[in-house]
């Protein structure tokens, strides 16, 4: 009896977590244009609309945002995510190496300092960055988005690479040095291959979070730099339209693919 209750609890738990997401996926194929909560038939219309196919213009679709705007938002998001994740990977890895491998005063303090941006409320970081950029007279642009997101994404890379470094015994690096390798050679031939899965994981994580970030980006984007989340947010303010479900489903798919590739590469590396 208790076991059954426990199983039921387990089932309900996962329903609670995944049902909303599955609903969005289901609604994205719902042909009902007026009320997406009522199933009226299967359709690919919303996906067609996203990809710019002409569909019959009806009352409900007459205010559809143009696909061009959506594409521009996706392009901005990809540009930002790519730059930010690469930037964060390089600096996050360098920081993790410094904290893990060099002995200096207050190393523990700096480690904590690197964790703080992850727990900092987005809204506080957003406001702070906005004020900072205005104070130093920097115009809000795609550049400020990249800098703004990097401030906390470096922390994510730092954490993933640090975890990997903690597992990489220093004796490997010592063995390399012992066999005559300069610090740079040791880094290239031993340290980097050892932490590569961590760097890759951190990079993908940073990429996904960047693609998804709304709050901080919203503060520092200014006008004319619409990322995908900002674009969706804008669409939502004019009512929940069915193609939002399709966009959300595609984003979900994209994220799953990226995370899947990450996990696959990781498992292959550690063998």
């Amino acid at each position, binding site marked *: 009896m208790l076991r059954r209750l426990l199983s039921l609890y387990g089932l309900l738990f996962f329903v609670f977590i995944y049902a909303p997401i599955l609903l969005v996926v289901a609604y994205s194929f719902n042909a009902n244009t007026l009320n997406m909560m009522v199933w009226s038939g299967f359709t690919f219309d919303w996906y067609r609309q996203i990809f710019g196919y002409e569909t019959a213009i009806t009352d409900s679709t007459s205010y559809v945002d143009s696909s061009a705007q959506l594409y521009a938002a996706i392009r901005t998001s990809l540009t930002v995510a790519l730059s930010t994740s690469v930037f964060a990977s390089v600096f996050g890895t360098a920081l993790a190496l410094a904290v893990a491998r060099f002995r200096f005063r207050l190393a523990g303090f700096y480690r904590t300092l690197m964790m703080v941006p992850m727990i900092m409320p987005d809204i506080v970081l957003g406001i702070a960055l906005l004020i900072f950029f205005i104070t130093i007279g920097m115009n809000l642009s795609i550049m400020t988005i990249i800098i703004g997101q990097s401030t906390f994404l470096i922390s994510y890379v730092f954490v993933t690479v640090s975890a990997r470094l903690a597992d990489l*015994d220093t*004796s*490997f690096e*010592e*063995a*390399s*040095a*012992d*066999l*005559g*390798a*300069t*610090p740079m*050679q*040791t880094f290239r*031939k*031993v340290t980097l*291959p*050892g932490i590569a899965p961590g760097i890759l994981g951190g990079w993908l994580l940073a990429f996904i979070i960047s693609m998804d970030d709304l709050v901080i980006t919203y503060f520092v984007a200014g006008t004319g730099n619409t990322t995908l989340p900002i674009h969706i947010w804008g669409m939502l303010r004019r009512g929940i339209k069915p193609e939002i479900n399709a966009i959300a489903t595609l984003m979900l798919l994209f994220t799953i693919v990226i995370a899947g590739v990450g996990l696959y590469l990781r498992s292959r590396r550690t063998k």
Partner: protein
Amino acid sequence: MTALDGVSLKLASAEFVTLLGPSGCGKTTLLRCISGFETLDAGDVLIDGAAVTQMPAHRRPVNTVFQRYALFNHMSVARNVGYALEIAGNDKATIRTRVSEMLELVGLEGMEKRSVSQLSGGQQQRVALARALAGKPKLLLLDEPLSALDKNLRQKMQQELKAIQRELGIGFVFVTHDQEEALTMSDRIAVLAHGRIQQIDVPSVLYESPANLFTADFLGESNLLPVAIDGGQASLADGQSFATTCASRQATLLLRPEALGLAKPEGPKLSFSGRIAETYYSGKDHQITLETAAFGTVRALIRSGATAPEVGADLTLHAPASGLHLIDEVAE
């Protein structure tokens, strides 16, 4: 914190020296000072007459076999063994020849393509050895390399290491906490404790006539009995005495368990009577714990073959007075 204090160690070329001591005695730290992974507050490290004290680890002409081997998992056996040569910028053909030479030396012919994670512990040990030797170091450092192997493999590797060292004719500094290992392999042993070298000498001298109580106690089993000395005569607590040249008034007699026997030797001797408290049979001999009135427990090693000693029985054991060794220190 001082890990090492006033340590002075000089190796002849092609000498096998073991640093022996309990964990935390500073033996690994001393090894790391030689390899360049620890910096000295004072003093110098010289290799082949040249000071390397200020030289970073990667420029020192020494290589190390690490305790857990530290083999590069993402590289093949061949790349591991050839690492030093690759770093030094040798061409591929030279590296290949030297790698197969090294693998042959350690008995892993034809294993070049294997991944190191596919190897057994003993094989990994050999790869680590081959890797450290490939760059022709002037001195090889070994940090408890055999501690992860099981007993049989260990004894085999001990003999092989010794043979390889003789063949190559380079110095080995071997760190271990295993006294048997140290005794069988070394040309000389340095016994370390509390960051100091307690004694350094050839194994037989260390075992038979240790200079201090620590060495006597750490190397092998021992009975340490207090003696009072007066006029060239050392007397035990029960009144037995023997001739000595020791000048102190108080000293400690080292009596190895195997020095005691059932047979009464000719000439001067020491005798110990008591009740057998415990016996252990180990194949070639019996280990006996004798409960004596004057000295408490005395441990002895009796060849098997004679009548087996029984717990509770009374027994008298003798040691010839000729081979007795006095340590000029008083046990606490």
